[in-house]
């Protein structure tokens, strides 16, 4: 009798285990599939615009959605070479690299100082930075326009570069400071007793530890600078305009050459897309740090 009971018991629990196991698995794999679906759904609009760059005018305007077509590079050729817009990309590059390099060189030591030293008025700096972060770009754009006009710098590169510094520098200091905060202050102390000055400790002991942080901040800053629209529009001339600022002017009420616009937009987006994949790991860390730590 007891053996029978025993048999019944184990079979029941085994069945339960099996069923539980499968249920869970089904749920999990469903979520994976749904996630994949969702990701594709999100990518689709951009991919579609991306594809427009490779279509001819008639293909774009055709009422039915064309899934397969013979891709053409005519739009790219037209927009980049014939109209010479490849220069815009160089402009974006010049502005981004200049602004970001300057901000890294100045911002990283400053962030270290904010992390290690008691700075009077830290709160007020914070408030001011936050206020500027929140205010529309116009707030700074107008006075900068006036000043640069007076100085005769409108349309030159220094103008947008300086404008970009206004939002890049706080970002660099903000993020680097939280990276520095993560390094225990004892390491500074250890290096200083080991025979380094504060500067020496900073260069030889601390900096190597934030290398990946600096890379992440640099790449992020380049992305933000690349994407910037208003300053790039107002403070530049046709010769110095970055790519992002030029695109909207190609969109006219009538007769817009969508293929070319799409092509330009694609070229403007590619560097960012590439950088994102280079930044994979830092992205998550950077986001949660910067976000949660405020």
């Amino acid at each position, binding site marked *: 009798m007891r053996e029978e009971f025993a048999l019944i018991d184990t079979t029941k629990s085994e069945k339960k285990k099996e069923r539980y196991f499968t249920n869970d698995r089904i749920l999990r794999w469903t*979520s*994976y599939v*749904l*996630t994949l679906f*969702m*990701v594709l759904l*999100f*990518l689709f*609009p*951009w991919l*579609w*615009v991306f594809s427009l760059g490779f279509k001819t005018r008639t293909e*774009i305007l*055709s*009422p039915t959605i064309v899934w397969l077509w013979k891709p053409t590079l005519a739009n790219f050729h037209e927009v980049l070479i014939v109209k010479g817009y490849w220069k815009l990309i160089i402009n974006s590059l010049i502005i981004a690299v200049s602004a970001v390099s300057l901000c890294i060189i*100045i*911002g990283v030591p*400053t962030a270290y*100082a904010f992390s290690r*030293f008691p*700075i009077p008025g830290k709160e007020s700096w914070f*408030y001011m930075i936050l206020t500027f*972060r*929140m*205010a*529309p*770009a*116009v*707030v*700074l*754009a*107008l*006075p900068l326009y*006036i*000043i640069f006009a007076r100085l005769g710098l409108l349309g030159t590169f220094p103008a947008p570069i*300086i404008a970009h*510094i206004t939002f890049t520098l706080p970002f660099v200091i903000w993020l680097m400071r939280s990276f520095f905060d993560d390094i225990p202050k004892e390491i500074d102390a250890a290096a200083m007793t080991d025979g380094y000055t504060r500067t020496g400790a900073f260069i030889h002991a601390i900096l190597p530890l934030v290398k990946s942080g600096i890379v992440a901040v640099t790449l992020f800053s380049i*992305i933000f600078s690349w*994407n*910037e*629209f208003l300053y790039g529009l*107002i403070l530049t001339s046709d010769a110095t305009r970055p790519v*992002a600022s030029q*695109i*909207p002017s190609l*969109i006219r009420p009538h007769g817009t050459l*969508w293929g070319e*616009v*799409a092509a330009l937009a694609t070229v*403007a*987006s590619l560097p960012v*897309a590439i950088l994102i994949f280079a930044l*994979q790991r830092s*992205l*998550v860390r950077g*986001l*949660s740090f910067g*976000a*949660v730590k*405020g």
Partner: protein
Amino acid sequence: MKSRKYIWWWVSPAAILFLLIILVPFITALTYSFRAYSFTDSTAHGQFIGVENYRKLVFDSDFYNSFKVTFLYMIPAIVFQGALGLGMALLMAGAVRRARILIPIMLLPTLLTPVVIGLVGVLILNPDFGIVGQFLFRSGLIKEAVLGSTKLALPAIIAVDSYQWTPFVAVILTAGMLGLPKEPYEAAQVDGANKWQTFIRVTMPLLWPYLVVALLIRVIDAFRIFDIIWVMTRGGPGISTETVAVYAYRHTFRFWDLGYGSALIMVIFVFISILVEYLYKALQRWQSNGSAA
């Protein structure tokens, strides 16, 4: 050794640079706000006119409208992005754990220039060949182009903005979820909680800080939003999508009334600083309450 002067060495380049590029424009704007400076008005040549610009501002109904539009955009956007972002995070968390590469893919819309996102919006909603616009137009659901309709333009902008930023919210929440401790879940399991209860009682409280931070960032950005709106509607039709930023742009760089524009940006700046202070204090209060709990 650790004297004031020494600290100054470290901080001065940034401090000087900052003061220059912030203070000087600030003072410039302040002085201009009290003068008449307009490229379109031939009588205005920089004479001092006291608070005339401010007076004009106070009586401009479009100014108040821009605030209304901003809030009409901000509230639904935040609610939508928060809810959808949460849903997406819950769905994604498992898959992301397996395939970290999903994160950069999801963040693509967020990190692309808003101009391109705006372009995506324009193209999709195009009534002739846009993948969504076509369908809406042909099926008779809408009579005019979405972006030309005073009723539909703002929702369209909210939708496009959400397209760009919901993944951001979702990724922050996902990152938060992946870092959640296991113990509360094990305790809930031992206590016999079902999936819904676990969600409400364990997941939500733990995720709450991340949600607040993500949405706070969105609130901060709400006043800045410009690029998308400019590309899609230029603030129109009429002024139905004219947020504060767009209104400011129109009056400064379209009408070229620099005096009025300066007054405008001064007022906006003051408004934002008050908002920041309020938000900051609320955040402090909330944080100290939350940590006590």
